[in-house]
């Protein structure tokens, strides 16, 4: 393990207490809503913020503990990429990338040569003499990545590295970042509020809400079996806590959901919005999961319309725009919603 930490910080009303460990070559995503304390954790790992308790062990070195050990940021072997790149505006791109080598005593020609090689690697050959202000957002973030990696740090910290980019650029930079992270031998921690970043880039996901870890695991596990509403919403699921008995789950909020397997005890029921069908009249046949509900908000969502439903079982349904029009739905309309038992995921709480 080249990064092991427990971070305890009290910031106003937010009490952060997060434990994490990242192995060599591993990428850990810290996923959470704004204000959950993700960036605070990262700043403590970097040494930019002194925590109130806990410890940080970087590559076997105790760089912070509650007693008196506090290695300042500039003495830690780490690289950091910030949300809005923070390339120094008064230095050329090459000088920016060479900066970390120069501060560590590398001579100018050698530092510039190394910077040039890294700029090649991130696809920025030929822009080295430009100022950061002359780069596009994607180019700037690539240069920032090169700047963080040039010193071959043991730990790479990425603070929302893609969220300042427009959607199209984000796609390409994400793919490149994925490639560089795969090549990277040290431990990487990625802070993001975008589940796609976490799913695409990380080996493991730590979900942080209100300063606490609420779920952790491999990305696909987190995506399939969310344990909080926040994660469920992020991955596009409706999460219903309940108690299982046989092939039925009695929901905490009232209502019963039929499932395909035998369950018992406290469970989560997860429903994908696209598996929910809407009807104006009670559907014929005998689907077991049918509820009369009321349409709340309806918002276009790509090629579908996302319908929030209220009633006994609060659900979200994705229906195609055509179907939505044919049903003639408007907020407040009474509808019947049905889900096949086999489409419902159920797992222990």
């Amino acid at each position, binding site marked *: 393990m080249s990064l092991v930490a427990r971070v305890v910080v009290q910031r106003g009303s937010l009490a952060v207490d997060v434990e994490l460990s990242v192995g060599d070559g591993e990428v850990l995503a810290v996923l959470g809503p704004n204000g959950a304390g993700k960036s605070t954790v990262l700043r403590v790992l970097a040494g930019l913020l002194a925590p109130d308790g806990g410890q940080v062990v970087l590559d076997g070195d105790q760089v912070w503990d509650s007693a008196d050990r506090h290695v300042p940021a*500039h003495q830690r072997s780490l690289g*950091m990429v910030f949300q809005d790149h*923070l390339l*120094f*505006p008064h230095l050329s791109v090459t000088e920016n990338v060479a900066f970390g080598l120069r501060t560590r005593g590398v001579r100018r020609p050698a530092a510039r040569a190394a910077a040039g090689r890294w700029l090649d690697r991130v696809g920025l050959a030929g822009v080295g003499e430009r100022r950061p202000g002359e780069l596009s957002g994607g180019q700037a973030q690539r240069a920032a990545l090169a700047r963080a990696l040039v010193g071959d740090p043991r730990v790479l910290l990425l603070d929302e590295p893609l969220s300042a980019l427009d959607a199209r650029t984000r796609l390409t930079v994400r793919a490149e970042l994925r490639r560089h992270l795969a090549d990277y031998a040290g431990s990487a921690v990625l802070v993001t509020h975008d589940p796609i970043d976490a799913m695409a880039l990380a080996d493991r996901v730590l979900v942080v809400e209100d300063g606490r870890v609420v779920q952790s695991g491999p990305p696909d596990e987190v995506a399939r079996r969310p344990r909080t509403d926040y994660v469920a919403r992020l991955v596009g699921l409706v999460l219903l806590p309940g108690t299982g008995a046989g092939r039925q789950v009695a929901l905490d909020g009232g209502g019963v959901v039929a499932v395909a397997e035998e369950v018992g005890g406290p469970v989560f029921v997860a429903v994908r919005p696209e598996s929910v069908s809407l009807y104006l009249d009670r559907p014929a046949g005998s689907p077991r999961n049918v509820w009369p509900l009321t349409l709340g908000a309806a918002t276009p969502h790509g090629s579908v319309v996302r319908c929030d439903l209220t009633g006994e079982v609060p659900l979200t349904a994705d229906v195609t725009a055509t179907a939505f029009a044919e049903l003639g739905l408007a907020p407040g309309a009474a509808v019947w919603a049905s889900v096949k038992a086999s489409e419902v995921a159920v797992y222990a709480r």
Partner: protein
Amino acid sequence: MSRRRPRDGGVPAPLLVPALLAVAFLVLPLAGLVVRAPWSELGPQLTRPGVGEALRLSLVSATLATLVSLLLGVPLAWVLARSQVRGRSVLRALVTVPLVLPPVVGGVALFLVLGRQGVIGRWLFETTGFSLPFTTAAVVVAETFVAMPFLVISVEGALRAADARFEDAAATLGADRWTTFRRVTLPLVAPGIAAGAVLCWARALGEFVATITFAGNFPGTTQTMPLAVYLALQRDPDAAIVLSLVLLAVSLATLLLLRGRWLGRGATA
């Protein structure tokens, strides 16, 4: 957008009239100076003995005062803006006192501390035989005392406005605070420092009361342009006008020169 345009263009009368009066108030005296100038006598007046000396002394001492202010004031501004030193607000208040202090009080205070009988001045005289008052060095000290707060205040403002996260980025790249200051902070706030230095220099160039109180009025060593202007006004108003014009021209030229190079960029950045 188009609905807002009339509002952007028009200036309401209650604002326009005082604004025009203010412009007139600020510009008319300078215009009067130009109008009343004895242009035909300009050559002889300027080549009179003492004029060149006073001008040179003014420029040299104002420049030296600015250099001292930069060397001491920029670090002070950093301490005020960035450090966690306790009692920073008290410190800032103390530093800005010379801004509001009547310069004559400053001159008297300097005299009491640095004069031959002063706390530090006596020790200085006894150990080195050097007495500060009534020397060119005293002019520089008086000007620095009055002008440095202008530099400190404007550099501190620039530091506060600069994005401190660049310094975080530098720290993650292995730069200690001193390296960060030299290689990141200083270049980032350079326009602010330049603006502060110009302000400081202009204030030092015009400094009169503290200088005459602490350094006296000796042609060649402590008689700067403002002192020469004031004395000339009592004997020979035409000479005073000419000297004033010279000061005005020097100030304007400096302002214009630096505006193009530094201030304009600083204002838009």
